């Protein structure tokens, strides 16, 4: 018995449109949420075409890099679940290509993760092959935990309104990281390693934190919506209680070549599908978003620092960490994607990135709608951090 993917109707029209483009091979990503109970696909995004056209040959590295960037633009609960490919012919190597892509995407994304995978995580990823001439679709899954995994057939079913039944969890989290830099070798690489080690320790604190959803603690295995009538709460405010690890490894006092402090409060958001959601799943998704958003922002900052290293004075540096903006997706219910913005960037850069990475075409809509979504981005910018 294979997996069954319930896919948002709008994805069907999007893929149809892609089929009509006269090109031999098109790839893209499938985004949604997989849990023990169900698999949902809410969005399909084509691999952005590269400026330098290298013909129709598939650039696997670019597909994978795109997946990595898109991954950072997804709030908790939504992730890259698979890859699609649209071809004019049914070749045997299409299957091989899909398999390679799915494994490579997973390897890259998981290598950058700071949260620890759980035993009950779903490790199946989906591949979708559409023949643009016959419109025949073939859907298969691979278990990315098993390198020798064979393709298993899966169901691909379109349904309208998949995006409207999601519960949003959100919180604003205070971060206060403070750690030393080593004595010698104050290079960007050593600083990056120190930061990564500290983020790992902090991530463990977050993962073992106690979650309250709308002020309540839920026992293990409880349903989030127990005792509520249908169509009850759609949004939960989350509180997280943490405590440092009991044991300290290493010396109490160490000589150091400086210190790093990361302080502030960040927005975090996660989605779970509202059909019998487990409180534990909601908690897991939000915690992972907390960890990912801080890690992504710090990573972006390090990249920025690396390019401006020569300009730093001996007294250190103080930089603003990029803020997060949420951008709702038209026709996708409460679901939003997100992006990060340095303080010197305007909203046009954000719109450009959303367009490029997520094929999020705000500009093509009618003028009133353009204003609306444009405003939404601006409004979000001022509200979030």
């Amino acid at each position, binding site marked *: 018995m294979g997996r069954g993917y319930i896919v948002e109707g709008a994805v069907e029209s999007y893929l149809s449109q892609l089929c009509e483009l006269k090109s031999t091979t098109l790839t893209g990503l499938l985004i949604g949420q997989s849990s023990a109970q169900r698999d949902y696909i809410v969005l399909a995004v084509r691999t952005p075409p590269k400026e330098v056209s290298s013909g129709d040959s598939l650039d696997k590295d670019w597909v994978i890099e795109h997946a990595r960037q898109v991954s950072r633009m997804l709030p908790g609960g939504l992730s890259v679940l698979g890859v699609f490919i649209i071809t004019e012919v049914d070749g045997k190597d299409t299957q091989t290509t899909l398999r390679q892509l799915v494994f490579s995407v997973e390897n890259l994304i998981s290598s950058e993760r700071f949260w620890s995978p759980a035993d009950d995580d779903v490790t199946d990823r989906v591949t979708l092959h559409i023949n643009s001439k016959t419109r025949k679709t073939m859907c298969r899954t691979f278990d990315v935990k098993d390198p020798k995994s064979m393709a298993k057939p899966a169901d691909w079913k379109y349904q309208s309104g998949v995006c409207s039944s999601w519960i949003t969890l959100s*919180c*604003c*989290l*205070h*971060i206060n990281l*403070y*750690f*030393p*830099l080593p004595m010698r070798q*104050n290079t960007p690489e050593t*600083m990056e390693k120190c930061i990564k080690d500290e983020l790992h320790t902090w991530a463990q604190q*977050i993962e073992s*934190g*106690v979650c*309250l959803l709308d*002020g*309540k*603690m*839920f*026992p293990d295995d409880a349903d989030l919506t127990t005792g509520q009538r249908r169509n009850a709460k759609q949004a939960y405010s*989350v*509180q*997280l*209680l*943490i*405590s*440092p*690890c*009991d*044991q*300290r490894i290493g010396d*109490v*006092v*160490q*000589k*150091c*070549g*400086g*210190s*790093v*402090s*990361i*302080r*502030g*409060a*960040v927005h975090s958001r996660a989605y779970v599908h509202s059909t019998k959601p487990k409180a534990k799943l909601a908690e897991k998704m939000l915690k992972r978003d907390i960890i990912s958003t801080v890690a992504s*922002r*710090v990573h972006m*900052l390090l990249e920025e620092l690396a390019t401006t290293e020569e300009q730093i004075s*001996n*007294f*250190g*540096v*103080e*930089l*603003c*960490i990029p*803020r997060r903006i949420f951008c709702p997706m038209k026709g996708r219910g409460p679901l939003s994607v997100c992006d990060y913005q340095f303080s010197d960037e305007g909203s046009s850069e954000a719109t450009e990135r959303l367009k490029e990475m997520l094929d999020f075409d705000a500009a093509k809509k009618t003028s009133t709608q353009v204003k609306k979504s444009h405003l939404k981005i601006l409004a979000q910018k001022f509200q*979030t*951090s």
Partner: protein
Amino acid sequence: MVVETHLSDLNLILRVKGPLEFKCLFDKTDAPNIEKVISQTFEGLSSDIKSDFCVFTLCDGLVVIWPNKDVHMSEDITPNTPCEELSQWIQTSEQESVSKRSLKKNQTKAKKCTTVINLGLMMEATRPRALQSVFARTVQTSHFVSTVLKMDCVICVRFGETIQDACLRLVEELSNQLNEMKRVTLLHLKGTSILIPEPFHFLLPQPHGLVTAVYPSGVPDSQLQTVRQTLHQKYDLADDTPFFRRANAYHFPNEPYRDGYLRNPHLSLTHPAFDNGKVYLVQGLYSYHHYMQDRIDDNGWGCAYRSLQTICSWFQQQGYVDRSVPSHKEIQQALVNVGDKQASFVGSRQWIGSIEVQMVLNELLGVTSKIMFVSQGSELASKGRELANHFTTEGTPIMIGGGVLAHTILGVAWSETTGEIRYLILDPHYTGAEDLQLITEKGWCGWKGPEFWDQTAYYNLCLPQRPKVI
């Protein structure tokens, strides 16, 4: 260091434990600067404790308390709920539901024992609104301090006290403990070397109850003599009992011991009662050592060694010695070292007797013992007064050897008027697992009558003397 609580008020203790991160940077290493930075860091932690983001979570229960905010978890439990009701929210393994246990279950337990409700100290990381996040980096050579303070405060709940009032008292205690930790840290500062302060609770005789002291970690008890003297004076305590040694820290009910040995199995026995009979027992804690433990098969020859180990465990756990319980080989080596046995004795399966026990206690622990000799077992029935006196003044376990057996005597029940006597025996010949129920049911730890002894054999008793120190 000032929780003077009276355990008799209501037998309910509220205890909060949790780590607080202590991090700071010394950019200059002169003493005034270091002291200033340390003080400021402690002050920062004090304001964290008093802030809206300090929380207490109920261990093994789904309750969270914000002691500095007026917040309800649900209708069932509010800040004005009496503290006793908190115990109804603690989930035991038999419970399925999250809601309150029925009151009836608690009321049948009329036994007067101390209940401890454990709370965990945590910080709420979520905030009402976002703040611009800033990344700051310094590049000067400096010293970075990073450690964890293990906060541990207790209060005795007063009758009818609400959760809010009790928790505010706990916050006050945490604040006091931080101040005390600051004082101890600054006192033991040596250049940039810092000793982490650790809290310990001690149960003092009435009327004092539970008292908390903060000691610097890494400084052994032997160097804290003057600190203990001050404490003894403050609480008007006799100076021959080490109330304030770390090993004598109060062991809270249901706190597990890490080494796996049973502690004081005799406590679950019903003591004999007869005309004018009084019970005199060992004072303090010991571990039950017996055949086959520690993967050593000493079945048939090791009984006196095991009794000696039980005695050694008593001295260790009351804080008189630091060294761990000696192994059979270490016991044998000690006898070789004092010249009592040949070198070939080590590794053998030879028996030892009371005299050897006395020698080893002296050699390894610095403890002196009295030897009591009875020419026949029947005479033991008349030793009631002496044994009672021993348990009253020394309170140490007694090793008795005679016939072909060695045992440990943990107490005596004796009537001055009728002379009726019973002996509380801990039997080292037991070969099974650390099963308290089995051990007490089958009498491996149990009360025996005078017929227990071989009436014609002679016996030697080794009565260890408690050092009169603090």
